[in-house]
């Protein structure tokens, strides 16, 4: 599917919004329905009250009419007033929509008008016959009026019963509307909640899982495995990220291979240089010595001195090449980490140094049992350089001392080599480890200026630090961590 995460989110939110819209509309509709149903109940209750009032008035007026018919003129006046007020109630009742019962109500109304007319007729006849309320036509009228009255009251009773049913119906309809509203709105809400939960869970899985695998792959690469690639079948933002990751790792891998290749070439180059430079130097040295030995008789002192200078220079250059080779070896090749007995190593290097000038008195203090983890070959080059320096710079000291030991520095072990030799001013401390930088002339102390650069490179390759403390003529202490 070619849907990206942004589109998924948009679709999800749109569906949610749609749900909310539907829920709002359905809530509005059911509220409206409920309001209408309540209004209907109200109007029917009002209508029913009006009807009751009407019936009540009617009964009162009918009883007034009964006296009026008997000739009581005062009751006739009351009856007429009642008729008048009943007209109003009829008008009010006509306002309510009573459906089929309107016919019934109209029937009652017309019956009432009939009674009124008949009563008026009855009074007219009685007046014509000089207040004779017991004549035959009057009696007939009275009987007719009574019949109408009975039928009217029956009708009114029927109307009341109908109204009762009518109200019950409206109430139950309102009940149904309410339940339906609750059911539809509630159901929609539950569906919306379920949908959003599913969508949220799905999206989270959709995003979290690939991000996790990306994190794992990144950690692999950070750990040095450049072969890691992420399988990618997605076409969304995560897919793009995966693709970029793979592309980046490809690039890194290519650069790594290139660097490895260049390093190999450099290694081969330095090997050839060292070999090819040393061979002619050996020959210059050899033939110069042959000259000195075989032609000593025909060379004067100056000639011999020149040849000695040639030999001396070739030896300087040989030393320089050796040091450069050690420096280049210190930077190349893999580290073979193992436990190295530093104390034993220091003792053996010191005894080698003593062998070069056996008559030189030198006092050495070596802390026993110091073990470090590192590449033995490189650590030997490191210790040889530092100890040779200590040896060299104490050369003019009548009571030379060299010390090897450890101190604790920020919770790490720092190894140190201390001498009481020429030392140096701390203002030159930043130049100590720069290749070819020397703090002494060759006449004072011999050297190529490569030794401490090599030492620093070895320490750096072991992930450690190196620093020194010294003062002129006060000796020097070199500290390093691994």
């Amino acid at each position, binding site marked *: 599917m070619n849907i990206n995460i942004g589109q998924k989110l948009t679709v999800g939110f749109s569906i949610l919004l749609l749900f909310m819209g539907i829920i709002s509309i359905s809530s509005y509709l059911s509220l409206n329905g409920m309001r209408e149903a309540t209004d209907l109940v109200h109007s029917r209750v009002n209508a029913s009250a009006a009807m009751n009032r009407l019936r009540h008035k009617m009964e009162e007026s009918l009883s007034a009419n009964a006296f009026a018919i008997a000739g009581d003129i005062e009751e006739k006046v009351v009856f007429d007033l009642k008729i008048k007020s009943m007209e109003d109630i009829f008008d009010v009742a006509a306002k309510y929509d009573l459906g089929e019962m309107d016919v019934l109500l109209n029937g009652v109304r017309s019956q009432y008008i009939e009674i009124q007319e008949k009563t008026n007729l009855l009074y007219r006849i009685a007046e014509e016959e000089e207040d004779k309320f017991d004549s035959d036509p009057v009696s007939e009228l009275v009987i007719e009026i009574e019949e109408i009255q009975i039928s009217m009251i029956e009708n009114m009773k029927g109307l009341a019963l109908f109204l009762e049913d009518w109200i019950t119906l409206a109430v139950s309809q309102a009940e149904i509307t309410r339940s339906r509203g609750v059911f539809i709105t509630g159901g929609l809400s539950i569906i919306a909640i379920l949908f959003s939960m599913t969508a949220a869970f799905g999206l989270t899985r959709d995003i979290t899982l690939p991000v996790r695998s990306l994190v794992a792959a990144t950690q692999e690469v950070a750990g040095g495995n450049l072969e890691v690639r992420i399988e990618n079948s997605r076409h969304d933002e995560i897919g793009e990220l995966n693709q970029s990751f793979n592309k980046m790792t490809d690039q890194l891998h290519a650069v790594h291979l290139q660097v490895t290749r260049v390093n190999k070439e450099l290694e081969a180059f330095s090997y050839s240089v060292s070999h090819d430079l*040393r061979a002619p130097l050996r*020959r210059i040295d050899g033939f110069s010595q042959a000259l000195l030995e075989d032609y000593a008789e025909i060379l004067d002192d100056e000639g011999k001195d020149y040849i000695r200078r040639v030999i001396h220079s070739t*030896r300087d250059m040989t030393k320089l090449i050796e040091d450069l080779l050690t420096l280049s070896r210190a930077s190349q090749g893999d580290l073979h980490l193992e436990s190295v007995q530093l104390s034993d190593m220091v003792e053996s290097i010191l005894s080698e140094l003593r062998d070069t000038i056996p008559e030189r008195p030198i006092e050495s203090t070596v802390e026993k049992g110091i073990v470090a983890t590192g590449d033995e070959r490189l650590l030997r080059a490191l210790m040889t350089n530092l100890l040779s320096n200590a040896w060299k710079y104490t050369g003019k000291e009548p009571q030379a001392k060299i010390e090897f030991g450890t101190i604790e520095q920020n919770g790490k072990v720092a190894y140190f080599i201390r001498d009481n030799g020429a030392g140096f001013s701390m203002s030159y401390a930043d130049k100590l480890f720069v290749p070819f930088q020397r703090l002494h002339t060759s006449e004072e102390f011999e050297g190529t200026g490569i030794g401490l650069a090599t030492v620093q490179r070895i320490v750096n390759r072991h992930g450690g630090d190196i620093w020194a403390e010294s003062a002129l003529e006060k000796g020097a202490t070199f500290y390093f961590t691994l």
Partner: protein
Amino acid sequence: METDDKTILLVDDSEDDVALTQRALKKNNIGNRMFVARDGREALDYLFGRGDDEGDKDNNNKRRRMPSVIFLDINMPKMNGFEVLKRIRADERTRLLPVLILTTSDEEKDLREGYRLGANSYICKPLDFSQFCEAVKLMGVYWLMLNEFPSGI
């Protein structure tokens, strides 16, 4: 010294180095029976008498007797020391012949390769000539006088 019947084959492409080695041997009185091959191909011709492919008719004459020991350089044109050593060890006639690698290289990988291919010894030429003389003297004494080998190899 009783080295007259013993010969050395020196394989080295540099005329200067040959001269210096010869001088060192002479100074130690062991230079009288030494043959020089100037590259790997010449060394094999000397040992096996081949060389028809080179068109050198006199080559068979060059072949005298098997040397008692071979001083072999590594870096040489056409065929380097390791290749020569491989051929020597592959041939029945020279399989047991003592071969000393004599070179300026002190690289670990060269040392390993030398011994892996069956060198009897690996000597890194000291850069100082007097030390080199001392080394040549020791080599001569050891390989031509002290060391015993079965006859007929």
